[in-house]
């Protein structure tokens, strides 16, 4: 497989005038291959959305970005603004969480899709309209020809998210970034929208980064999973491996705390103790050590673990993993 997106040592700092900058994303590296679906999972504040925005070069002051992002061999941070705008409108597609606030209420959905198409290529308005209508039909909007003349408020939440998907794929992007695309939707609508997204991505062979806090959604859609905690990636692997055999203590704890319909109701849930890290007061050493049940008082507190290759396609950032005996010794329950 050839890699499409290469993110290397990406860091996002937030400058705060006189006080120390906050390190919101730290030393993040990953690749997305052509046609691959990567899930970026973490809690709020873990840096997953900032990572996506940094990839699209949408962060400006007070954010300071370092590291490298290359899309199809092209280094995005060496392009000028005009070139970057072209990449953004032509090669990247984005779906945001809340379709209500990301669609313009005073233009019809048709006009908005046509605008997106015309920004990325020279095409007559009539041709762009035909394509917009085809796209709406493709994402399951019935009677697309008439519906294209409707305003966003005339659509339900799930339908609006379908319009967003149509807009995101309208320019035939190479990479689709979906930031919590179904978090604002009902479960039944979520199932429909995710099924649609799977179908479209499959048909077009798109590469996707799906950002979500929901392990269930990620595991049903993605091929690979990257787990983020406190601005860093702590574990990487195929969906199956990570869910069935999590290695990082945080991933284990996260998987254990998922509420499912076959959970034993007579027992308390296995919760992660403590509070999520605060950016202005990040712990030393491993960011997870204050909440980690198997952290020791030496290495975990002082040494920041780096992502180590455990097996093919599997990396983990935990110093306890290095020794096999510790590996077995980690138990969250």
């Amino acid at each position, binding site marked *: 497989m050839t890699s499409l997106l290469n993110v290397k040592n990406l860091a996002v700092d937030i400058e705060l005038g006189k006080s120390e900058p906050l390190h919101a994303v730290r030393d993040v590296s990953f690749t997305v291959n052509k046609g691959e679906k990567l899930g970026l999972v973490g809690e709020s504040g873990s840096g997953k959305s900032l990572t996506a925005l940094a990839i699209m070069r949408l962060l400006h002051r007070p954010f300071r970005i370092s590291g490298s992002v290359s899309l199809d061999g092209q280094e995005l941070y060496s392009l000028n603004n005009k070139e970057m705008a072209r990449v953004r409108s032509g090669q990247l597609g984005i779906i945001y969480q809340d379709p209500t606030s990301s669609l313009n209420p005073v233009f019809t959905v048709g006009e908005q899709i046509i605008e997106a198409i015309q920004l990325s290529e020279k095409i007559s308005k009539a041709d762009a309209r035909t394509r917009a209508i085809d796209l709406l039909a493709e994402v399951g909007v019935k009677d697309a020809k008439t519906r294209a003349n409707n305003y966003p408020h005339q659509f339900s939440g799930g339908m609006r998210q379908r319009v967003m998907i149509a807009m995101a794929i309208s320019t035939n992007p190479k990479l689709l970034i979906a930031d919590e695309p179904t978090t604002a939707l*009902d479960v039944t609508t979520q199932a429909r929208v995710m099924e649609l997204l799977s179908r479209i991505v499959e048909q077009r062979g798109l590469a996707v980064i799906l950002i979500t806090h929901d392990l269930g959604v990620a595991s049903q859609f993605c091929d690979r999973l990257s787990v983020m905690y406190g601005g860093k990636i702590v574990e990487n692997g195929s969906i199956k491996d990570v869910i069935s055999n999590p290695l990082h203590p945080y991933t284990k704890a996260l998987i254990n705390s998922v509420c499912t319909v076959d959970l034993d109701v007579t027992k308390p849930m296995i919760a992660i103790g403590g509070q999520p890290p605060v950016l202005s007061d990040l712990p030393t050493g491993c960011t997870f050590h204050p909440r980690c049940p198997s952290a020791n008082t030496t290495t975990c507190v002082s040494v920041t673990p780096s992502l180590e290759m455990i097996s093919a396609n599997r990396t983990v950032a935990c110093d306890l993993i290095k020794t096999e005996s510790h590996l077995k010794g980690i138990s969250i329950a």
Partner: protein
Amino acid sequence: MRVENLSKHYDVGNKKKLKAVDDVSFVINSGETFGLVGESGSGKSTIAKLIMRLEDPTAGRIYLGDTNLLELNRKDLLDARRDLQMVFQNPFDALNRRKRVRDIIELPLKVHTSLNEKEREDRVIELLELVGLRPEMIERFPHEMSGGQCQRVGIARAIALNPKILILDESVSAVDVSIQAQILNLLRELQDKLHLTYLFISHDLSIVRYMSHKIAVLYQGEIAEFGTREHLFTNPLHPYTHTLMNSIPDPFHEKSGKVSEIGTGDESIDKVSTGCAFRSRCAIGSQKEICISSNPDLTASASAHDLVACHFPTTSSEYAEALKSVGK
């Protein structure tokens, strides 16, 4: 608590009525958790508002013990609110950001009790410990705490007066996954310790199952199915309950999140005026005469333990067959 034939209809112009809640009845026994589950627009939050009397119902009765809450005057209602407390969805919005934790938790004690300042402070510290917060948090402002800690303060405020019933409206939906389990455990511990009664409202079926002894599934303002946790989850009978259960994305099972309804999902905004409200999404009833002409009543199912409002109650395997036959 006993809720009888509760309805809330809104006028939406053109002499049309929006039935946000329609003829809903249920009983919550002391010390148990009653779960209400449904999608947005199903009327679950409206029921909470009606019980709190933040809105007046179109029809119905709400009994707490022997008192009908709807017949109380302003003063008696204020007294009754001691026994009715609520924990809200967004912990940041539900706390006054200009007040310290002390003032937030103390307010109900000031309004409803004759405790002096020292006694109130002791009670606030006792409450903080009950919800798992350190006593020194008493001087914090909401912005100095995490979402999970704010939600604990919200719970401390709600139980300050030993209410007879606690309404939990999406109380864990806005907190992070890693904190959600902590809060759910805390709520169950408090229930055991203080013999609290909960009305637990959520859109999340797995969480409602974990928390509740009895569960009502709401669809467009009406109860579609009701049962004990055991019965509802081992033998669901309403097509809507099947749809909900099939939609849950579960990380531990192979792609279960298959769409298990017909249509595009856009129909539900044009509410059907007669017949069963779910029929446009139902694999069985969409074409059936009786489903189009009459709205099913909530009646005892064959097992007699549960109530179901459906002309053709089906088991989950029967419903899966029906879905297959319509090409889903």
